[in-house]
């Protein structure tokens, strides 16, 4: 797996110098601006993506969820194995950020200082990135519904990625996601990863966002051998016999209590620690193993790298003060699928609970009117649970969330509307309470999520 060296042309060098100089100046004034050097370089030479010198191996990681985690673990593993590796872990995953990363791996004379680059790529940027870099390996973690405004639907994203792919690229794909699994063409070499059936899993899909229900070959209704969430699971077509692809690299025998799993690949099986018990992270771990296999890393080395993984920084915090748990969940507004995963978690926590919800899109508060269609793509039905005593809804679009909750079956008398996104932390009663959930979005994490968390802590400490 070695690519031919691109010639270093004067215009390329000029663009790289302009980009590197910009990066140096930004660092001198204490700014990160990881996409700005790439932006400047592209202004000098718009065709730079197809001309910039590349290291001998290019790996691109994309997907709706898990691409950052997968990229970071993969780059770390390669680094630990002695590979000189570059990655955009600290930078933008759009075209400009990727150019910045590629420039970082070059000397001022345009020669590569790294062996391999692992690039996290925003899936919508595929058309702007893939034809230029023609990656040796493309890893796709999954493709599920995302922002309606930005991503439309996962089949559209799959089309964008597929139509930008080279037939020379080896695809590392999620076998348990039929949209991802069908990326590329028959000409692409493909390696699948997946998670074997676990004992207590459902075979009946539920929820509002199921994007694969019929056979891609004959349109017959599919049967689910395993259903996990959205369209993630293993299917069979009872009409034509079509099945989810067999996964070459698999996690199996997942034992949450012992914190272990079996990693099966290349006719060998190894017991590894579970990096955490979230199934999405298990998929990320197996995706890394599959990518390392494709990159020629021996099985023993892969196992050793995965065995030393640290749990990823989580978007979930859980603390207990005076016997009351405060659970903070990042509930990504505008993305119904992500909200469903957060909502699903709430009823699993034992005891009497109160939920504080402020998940408006902060960036659209004053200059737009948020398109709230996405809240009907999220399973608010999980919150119609008898153990949830009250749901406080804050923010500008609170009335929309309240209506959605009621349509989902939440008793309207349990819904409390508060204009402020933070005031609910003062209004809730802490008596007879086992857990309180602080739900916020990405864009209001600092302005709402943090103060709510702080106020809840203060009130619980005062109560002790």
């Amino acid at each position, binding site marked *: 797996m070695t690519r031919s060296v691109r010639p270093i042309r004067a215009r390329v060098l000029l663009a790289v110098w302009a980009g590197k100089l910009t990066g140096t100046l930004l660092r001198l004034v204490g700014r990160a601006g990881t996409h700005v050097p790439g932006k400047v370089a592209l202004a000098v030479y718009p065709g730079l993506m197809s001309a910039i010198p590349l290291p001998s191996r290019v790996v691109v990681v994309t997907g709706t969820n898990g691409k950052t985690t997968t990229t970071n673990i993969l780059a770390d593993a390669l680094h630990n194995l002695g590979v000189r590796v570059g990655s955009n872990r600290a930078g933008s995953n759009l075209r400009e950020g990727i150019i910045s990363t590629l420039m970082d791996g070059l000397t001022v004379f345009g020669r590569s200082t790294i062996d391999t680059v692992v690039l996290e790529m925003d899936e919508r940027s595929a058309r702007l990135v893939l034809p230029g870099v023609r990656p040796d390996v493309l890893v796709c973690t999954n493709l599920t519904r995302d922002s*309606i*405004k930005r991503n*439309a*639907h996962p*089949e*559209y994203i799959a*089309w964008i990625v597929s139509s930008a792919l080279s037939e020379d690229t080896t695809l590392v794909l999620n076998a348990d996601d039929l949209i991802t699994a069908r990326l590329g063409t028959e000409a692409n070499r493909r390696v699948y990863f997946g998670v074997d059936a676990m004992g207590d899993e459902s075979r009946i899909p539920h929820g*509002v*966002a*199921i994007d694969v*229900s*019929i056979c891609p070959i004959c*349109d*017959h*209704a599919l049967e689910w051998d395993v259903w996990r969430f959205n369209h993630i699971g293993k299917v069979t077509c009872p009409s034509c016999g079509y099945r989810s692809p067999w996964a070459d690299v698999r996690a199996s025998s997942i034992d949450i209590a012992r914190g272990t799993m079996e990693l099966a690949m290349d006719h060998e099986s190894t017991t590894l620690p579970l990096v955490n018990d979230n199934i999405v992270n298990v998929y990320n771990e197996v995706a890394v193993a599959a990518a390392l296999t494709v990159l020629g890393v021996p099985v023993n080395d892969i196992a050793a790298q995965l065995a030393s993984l640290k749990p990823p920084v989580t978007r979930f915090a859980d603390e207990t003060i005076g016997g009351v748990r405060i659970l903070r969940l990042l509930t990504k507004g505008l993305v*119904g699928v992500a909200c469903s995963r957060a909502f699903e978690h709430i009823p699993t926590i034992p005891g009497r609970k109160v939920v504080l919800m402020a998940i408006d899109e902060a960036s659209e508060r*004053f*200059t*737009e*009117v948020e*398109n*709230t*269609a*996405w*809240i*009907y*793509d*999220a399973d608010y039905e999980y919150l119609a649970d008898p153990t949830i005593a009250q749901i406080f809804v804050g923010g*500008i*679009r609170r*009335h*929309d969330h*309240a*209506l959605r909750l*009621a*349509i989902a079956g939440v008793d*309207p008398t349990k819904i409390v509307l508060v204009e402020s996104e933070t005031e609910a932390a003062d209004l809730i009663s802490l008596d007879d309470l086992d857990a309180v959930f602080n739900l916020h979005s990405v864009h209001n994490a600092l302005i709402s999520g943090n103060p709510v968390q702080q106020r809840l802590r203060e009130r619980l400490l005062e109560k002790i």
Partner: protein
Amino acid sequence: MTVIIEMLFPEIANLHGDNSNIEYLAQSLEGARIHRTGINDTPRFVSERVDLVYLGPMTESGQLKAIDRLTPHGPRIAELIESGTHFLFTHNAMEVLGNRVSNAEMNYDVPGLGIFDFVTTVNMFNRYTGKVMGTIDEVAQPIVGYKSQFSMVSSAPDAPGFLTADRGIGRNRSTRVEGVRVNNFIGTSLIGPLLVMNPYFTESLLSSIDPSREPTLALRELAIAAYDARVHDFNESARWSKAELLVT
């Protein structure tokens, strides 16, 4: 009377949360029965009474399947529209019933059912997103909703629309006329979902579907509060960008 709602092809017509239109309608029509017709099934409306036929948003490939499955029933659909059966086709569902759907990037140009005289052009690299606020004859309060679509519809200027946009665009960037309205057929590219987001319109629709009883909108107080807040925001000019307004 027991109202019967037929949801066409829910396995493929389920994007953008729009099927909540029917969930909300059913909650507002006590005793209503929802009949879900799969992509490989013969629609119920072909041979039995249906009070409202619903088709929701689809992917591009899903839209082609819907055209394929509904084409044999085109004359029956036209007959039902003529006789006053209620239809609600949202987002790109309406386009199925036009003359053609063309998509250069995905390399197809296929005939629709030809019930309505318009053509649809799908542009995968020029997605339109924006808000719409407009009026219809039978409801005093404005209709509000959102567009988030790859396609634009072109038709004769006098073809009857669902609403006239006071703000935002209609069937395409150069007309205020949005959607299609023929008798009780309502086709609109608005998402939201439309019926959840427009309680006064939904009450009017309930009366039309079942004139024998007073409309009882589910969760009316919450729905009106959400509607009022949205209309308040939609009325602020600063919240409208040039890109989402009509090209004049």
